[in-house]
């Protein structure tokens, strides 16, 4: 798939924003690390709103005909993309009301404050799920058609959100042990889930150029794709990373997105790192940004089979696992027309 910046920013920033809002509500519910002061709660809620808004605005850049964007709220009964939009829009009034209420009444633990913040949290989490399902429901792209996708979206949203909360606490001073530990834990969970995903997407799918053309008993090779220059299909779907570059980017995801922030926050548990704490969420966001680029660049749509293209960038599964794979048909029939 073509990695489009608009969609990368949408999922990256809004996912992080929703993760931040959910953890902020949780933190004030259970007073983890003493909970946040009203002014900090309002600022962090505002921060979450800014992140979500950056995501939502950048998503409109992906539309070729944005004047009809309002119609995207109408098909929530069948479309995950529509559900995402609806949940995100319902999220706004609760999040804004909570930030305003907390700011003007200095009350973070009253019934109304908790109700508003938790409602915003739940709606944000529903939006992350819808966002994951936009990709996970597509049977045409096997790297996306897995429950690991929404699971990863949650894990990464929580990890970045927790890093922001921990950094905010460290910078403003106060009991930071609980929040920093929570962020470290969530970053590690996200890293493990992402590793499982990378391990899993090398699995061969049952769809090959043979099932695509119906000639199941022999080799099928593309002679001519029938057009002299690229088409919408080749521009949108033919993007391929070479394997070395993909591996390097994966290492970057783990170093920048997970190891870096974890090391910083762990260092803070020893003695305070002060303003340097801000680099933890920034690194996490950068790492997840690279992760999101890979998420699109490594996805291979089955229509590529008709163009004789098969994923060259995809890592192969380890041999011992591949033997158990359901498909006996070789994954790559022919790959000679790049």
């Amino acid at each position: 798939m073509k990695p489009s910046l608009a969609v990368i920013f949408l999922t990256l920033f809004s996912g992080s924003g929703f993760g931040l809002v959910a953890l902020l509500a949780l933190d004030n519910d259970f007073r983890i690390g003493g909970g946040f002061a009203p002014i900090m709660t309002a600022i962090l809620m505002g921060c979450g709103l800014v992140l979500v808004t950056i995501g939502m605005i950048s998503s409109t850049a992906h539309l070729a005909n944005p004047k009809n964007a309002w119609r995207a709220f109408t098909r929530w009964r069948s479309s995950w993309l529509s559900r995402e939009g609806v949940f995100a829009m319902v999220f706004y009034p609760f999040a804004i009301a909570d930030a305003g209420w907390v700011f003007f009444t200095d009350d973070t633990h009253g019934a109304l404050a908790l109700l508003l913040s938790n409602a915003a949290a739940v709606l944000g989490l529903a939006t992350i799920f819808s966002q994951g399902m936009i990709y996970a429901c597509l049977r045409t792209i096997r790297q996306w058609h897995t429950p690991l996708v929404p699971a990863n979206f949650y894990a990464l949203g929580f990890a970045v959100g927790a890093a922001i909360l921990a950094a905010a606490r460290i910078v403003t001073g106060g009991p930071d042990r609980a929040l920093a530990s929570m962020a470290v834990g969530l970053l590690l969970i996200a890293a493990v889930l992402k590793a499982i995903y990378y391990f899993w997407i090398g699995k061969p799918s049952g769809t090959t150029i043979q099932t695509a053309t119906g000639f199941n008993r022999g080799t099928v090779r593309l002679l001519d794709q029938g057009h002299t220059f690229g088409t919408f299909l080749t521009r949108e779907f033919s993007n391929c990373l070479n394997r070395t570059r993909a591996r390097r980017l994966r290492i970057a995801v783990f170093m920048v997105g997970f190891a870096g922030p974890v090391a910083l926050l762990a260092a803070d548990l020893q003695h305070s790192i002060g303003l340097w704490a801000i680099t933890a969420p920034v690194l996490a966001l950068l790492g997840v940004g690279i992760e999101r680029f890979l998420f699109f660049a490594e996805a291979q749509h089955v229509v590529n089979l008709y163009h004789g293209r098969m994923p060259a960038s995809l890592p192969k599964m380890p041999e011992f696992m591949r033997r158990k794979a359901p498909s006996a048909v070789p994954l790559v029939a022919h790959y000679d027309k790049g």
Partner: protein
Amino acid sequence: MRLGLVIDLDTCVGCHACATSCKEWNTSSITAPLTDYDPYGKEPSGVWFNRIRHYEVGTYPNNKTINFPMSCMHCENAECVTVCPTGASYKRPEDGIVLVDQDKCMGCNYCSWACPYGARELDRESGTMKKCTLCVDRLYDEALPVEERKPACVLACPAHARMFGDLDDPQSAVSRAVRDRGGYALMPELNYNPTNHYLPPRTRAPVPTHDLGRPSLARKVKEWVNRVIER
């Protein structure tokens, strides 16, 4: 009713007449125009509803060239319709034709991601998704003679490799052809349940080549000269 095409891979000669006649009709039809980008330049490209690819099946000497036209399959389980957030994509209940309402489409490309057959192409000029309409504006046009109330590609095909009809009716010509010739749908494992079907090539006795005589010396020299002299 479930209107669709049956494409005979035995007789298709790969001439692209279906694609050009499709373009001709549809560029001034209900989802018009089918924009071309840089049509006379170095990188000609544009919107087409029908694309023909060419494959080699099997390995020499037991190989065969297959010309493979593909357009919208008008799937029963059309996920391009269910994923559409705006309701622009819809499947007509009366005849199963999948269409895009150009006034509602916001150009998010999501339906093209959901389509395994590459049937949908975004028009960069109008910003909307376009696709095969099965020439719905011909099928019910009473101003046309009855025999012309068919998709343009079917009328244009010089090899009669394209058949059009109701695949819900077991007695229709298309249903009979699918039954008799072992017609199949593409990528059945994805469960989109496409309406369009493909008829595999007929099995024929191979042309004998073992009894060809050894080439004469004069012919060998001629072939060698042909190889050596660069034209």
